[in-house]
């Protein structure tokens, strides 16, 4: 199809012709090309392992946050049952923040899973193409004169080269995304380290920097709503929650 061929394919073609220019001897070009392909396959494996590592880290954080959400909810109920509304509010603010983080983490884990699947499928495809190239390479070496071989190498190498370049782009995108998630995970860890999601009974309400930051970070409306709901539950004696039972025991 004359006239077709996008920017990316132009870049890829340029790379391949540079690769072909590097060696005068077609046999050498073929071996070099094959060697590069095998290296690329190793890189892909490493890239997939990186994605898996990033995903595991996020999943671990997500699990921890889930526990904290439950804990903070319980503590808010306890505080309210004891008539300590400011403390209940603090717990709910923290819970809201933890929930927001949790949602983001879960979305990111799903994205990473998609990427992992895609990269694995691509790796499989590239492996097949490389195998095909290896077979062709030996045929070309055995059957053609240097001049003829050069033409045929061009064809075969372009096909594999494009596959490699494309996988390279996919890897780059996956790496960029993993990098963003690492930054995100780091931010959550910092919040954790600062004690943001810790046991609120260890602190008085509104006493520290964390709480001031929390007020800025969390949606006041959501906290108000939840507080109101909890109060209503408490008043109607909806004591099916263990936290409330505890509260009743300790008026």
């Amino acid at each position, binding site marked *: *199809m004359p006239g077709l*061929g996008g920017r*990316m*394919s132009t870049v890829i073609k340029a790379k391949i012709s540079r690769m072909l220019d590097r060696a005068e001897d077609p046999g050498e070009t073929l071996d070099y090309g094959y060697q590069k392909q095998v290296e690329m396959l190793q890189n892909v494996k490493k890239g997939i392992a990186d994605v898996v590592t990033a995903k595991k880290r996020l999943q671990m954080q997500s699990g921890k946050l889930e526990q904290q959400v439950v804990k903070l909810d319980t503590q808010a109920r306890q505080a309210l049952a004891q008539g300590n509304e400011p403390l209940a509010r603090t717990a709910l603010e923290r819970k809201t923040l933890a929930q927001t983080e949790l949602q983001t983490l879960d979305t990111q884990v799903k994205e990473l899973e998609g990427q992992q699947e895609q990269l694995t499928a*691509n790796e499989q495809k590239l492996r097949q193409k490389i195998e095909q*190239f290896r077979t*062709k390479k030996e045929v070309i070496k055995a059957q053609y004169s240097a001049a003829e071989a050069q033409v045929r190498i061009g064809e075969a190498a372009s*096909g594999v080269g494009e596959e490699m370049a494309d996988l390279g782009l996919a890897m780059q995108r996956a790496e960029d995304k993993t990098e963003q998630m690492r930054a995100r995970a780091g931010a959550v860890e910092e919040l954790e380290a600062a004690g943001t999601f810790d046991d609120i009974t260890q602190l008085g309400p509104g006493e520290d920097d964390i709480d001031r930051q929390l007020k800025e970070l969390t949606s006041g409306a959501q906290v108000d709503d939840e507080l109101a709901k909890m109060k209503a539950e408490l008043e109607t004696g909806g004591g099916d929650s263990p936290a409330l039972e505890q509260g009743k025991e300790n008026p």
Partner: protein
Amino acid sequence: MIVRISGEGQFRLPDEDAGRLNELDNRAVKAVEQGDETGFRELWSQMLELVASDGNALADDELVESDVILPPRDVTFQEAKGEFTGDGLIPD
């Protein structure tokens, strides 16, 4: 003609589709130039649909070069600004 969706693989399409693809490509360039993300998204999904409806996936052991390379399916508008410029993916 052979079309690659970056990150997915290659598809064989009837040569007659080149004109349609080129037209969508040119319109996508315009949308990007005008900062019209909604318009771009619409055209981009039409391009993907064309490949999905008319294309047959190439076997994994086929070693052929693509005539057209489309960006990844989930291309961001920001990335599209780098790809859909000038003559677009398919030079006229």
